């Protein structure tokens, strides 16, 4: 199938700090937009489309456009949790292909660490505010976000015999990548990780249980951070400073708790095949998998749902260090992931940023000759209401 090459990521920036006291989310966004434009060789006035998840200020694209001082022709405030950026990248591709705009910016900023936001171990929804049809049925039970994902892991282990030792391979490979990424090493140092070093499956098994059966070293960190990326038309991409990274396929989906439903299958089972089908490539052609690693189980379920292995077989697929960049086959989360590099709350943008670095040859854990990457975001709660956003990326 001929791939449609109608929009490319031409500029990227990842905010280097994971603990940034005194800096606002908007500061992080503006710094990142400026740097991503510079990376592309573009300027402020070139921006004609703004995609925003409402992370900097309430109001999303409306307030961000006003703060930037721009009059964009396209404004998109898609907010579907951590996968918002995969959805937005797909929308930017579609809008550019339709001729609605030429230079789109996506940005993210968050100060979750400095603000001491208990994302994983607070209640699933804020204590204040009115009840709704879901919160009234869930809040009395004190389920945390981590417990929600733990429900999925428990069922996966029960149905398929998956073990923590097998899934620990995800943590092991990801930490290996993090130790090669100076920003990730600094993150773990600044956030006072107990050991800033490579880890083994045994370390994961011996780390304390936060919510059975999820251990601490299976859970992402909570950091500050952010970034930005510029998506542009082929005409703009031709003159950009760096080689273009083309968006060649996308899919979006949602899933939620259903009576009798299978909790071990995520929205990725819908968004993944849609993206691969559009791109005309199959999972076994992919070099780099950037999969949202809020927890090991998130990666595990999404790897299966995207078709990298059959349902129930991820334990064997991920065990040991098989997904490390220096092992044959698929390389996973080569930036160090949310487990060991950064997780300010919505990690989806970093999946795209590291995919681009790999396809440009700029990663700290570079896979030689990487040509195809998939960025798959999971937003919301894996064991409840969530989204899946899949983007397939290719170099020339």
């Amino acid at each position, binding site marked *: 199938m001929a791939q449609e090459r109608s929009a490319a990521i031409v500029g990227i920036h990842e905010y280097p700090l994971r603990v940034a006291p005194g800096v606002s989310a908007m500061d992080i966004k503006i710094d990142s937009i400026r740097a991503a434009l510079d990376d592309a060789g573009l300027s402020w006035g070139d921006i004609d489309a703004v995609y925003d998840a409402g992370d900097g200020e309430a109001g999303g694209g409306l307030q961000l456009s006003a703060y930037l001082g721009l009059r964009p022709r396209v404004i998109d405030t898609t907010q579907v949790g951590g996968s918002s950026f995969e959805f937005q990248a797909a929308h930017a591709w579609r809008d550019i292909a339709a001729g609605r705009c030429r230079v789109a910016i996506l940005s993210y900023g968050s100060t979750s660490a400095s603000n001491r936001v208990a994302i994983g171990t607070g209640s699933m929804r804020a204590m204040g505010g009115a009840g*709704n049809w879901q919160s009234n049925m869930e809040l009395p039970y004190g389920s*945390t976000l981590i417990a929600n994902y733990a429900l999925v892991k428990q069922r996966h282990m029960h149905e398929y015999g998956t073990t923590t030792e097998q899934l620990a391979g995800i943590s092991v490979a990801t930490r290996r990548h993090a130790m090669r990424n100076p920003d990730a090493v600094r993150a773990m140092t600044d956030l006072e990780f107990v050991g800033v070093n490579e880890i083994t499956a045994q370390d994961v098994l011996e780390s304390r249980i936060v919510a059975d059966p999820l251990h601490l070293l299976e859970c992402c960190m909570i950091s500050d951070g952010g970034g930005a990326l510029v998506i542009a038309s082929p005409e703009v991409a031709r003159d950009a400073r760096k080689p273009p990274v083309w968006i060649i396929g996308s899919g979006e989906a949602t899933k939620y708790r259903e009576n009798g439903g299978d*909790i071990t299958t995520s929205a990725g089972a819908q968004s993944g095949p849609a993206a691969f089908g559009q791109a005309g490539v199959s999972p076994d052609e992919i070099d780099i998998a950037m999969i949202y690693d809020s927890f090991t189980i998130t990666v595990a379920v999404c790897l299966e749902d995207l078709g990298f292995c059959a349902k129930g077989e991820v334990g064997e697929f991920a065990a040991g260090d098989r997904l490390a960049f220096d092992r044959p086959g698929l390389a996973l989360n080569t930036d160090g992931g949310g487990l060991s590099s950064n997780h300010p709350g919505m990690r989806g943008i970093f999946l795209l940023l590291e995919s681009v670095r790999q396809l440009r040859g700029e990663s700290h854990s570079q896979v030689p000759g990487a040509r195809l990457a998939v960025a798959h975001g999971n937003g919301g709660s894996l064991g409840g209401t969530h989204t899946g956003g899949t983007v397939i990326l290719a170099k020339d």
Partner: protein
Amino acid sequence: MPKRPQPRFPEPNSQPFWEGVREGELRYPTCDACSEVVFYPRLHCPFCGSRELSWKVSRGEGSVYTYSVVRQNRMPGFIELGAYSVAYIDLDEGFRMLSSVVGVDDPTRDIHIGQRVKVEFEPQEEGDYPIPVFRPI
């Protein structure tokens, strides 16, 4: 038992469920048009869009679909609770609800997937809604 967070009203979707709980009943709506079980309760049927629903009373028995034991929760009321369970319970009438399995010595050892359980209504403070939880049969 610490005070659990209460459902908040007005909230029309879940209000009949909680009024049922106050009367010692686990109620669930079904669709008059397509007969599907609607849960969590809503004011429409998510299968066909009908607004015509009828409330029924569950026998309150089901099995554990999956569970977790929470070791750390910073929310007031749960901080001091120690390890406690959260679970999806598949009721025999065909609906799945989030709840907690109680009445076991050690939730990390004594709860398992497929375990048969029955609802009970955990009293809260005076005037509060009781909370439906499940105990192994």
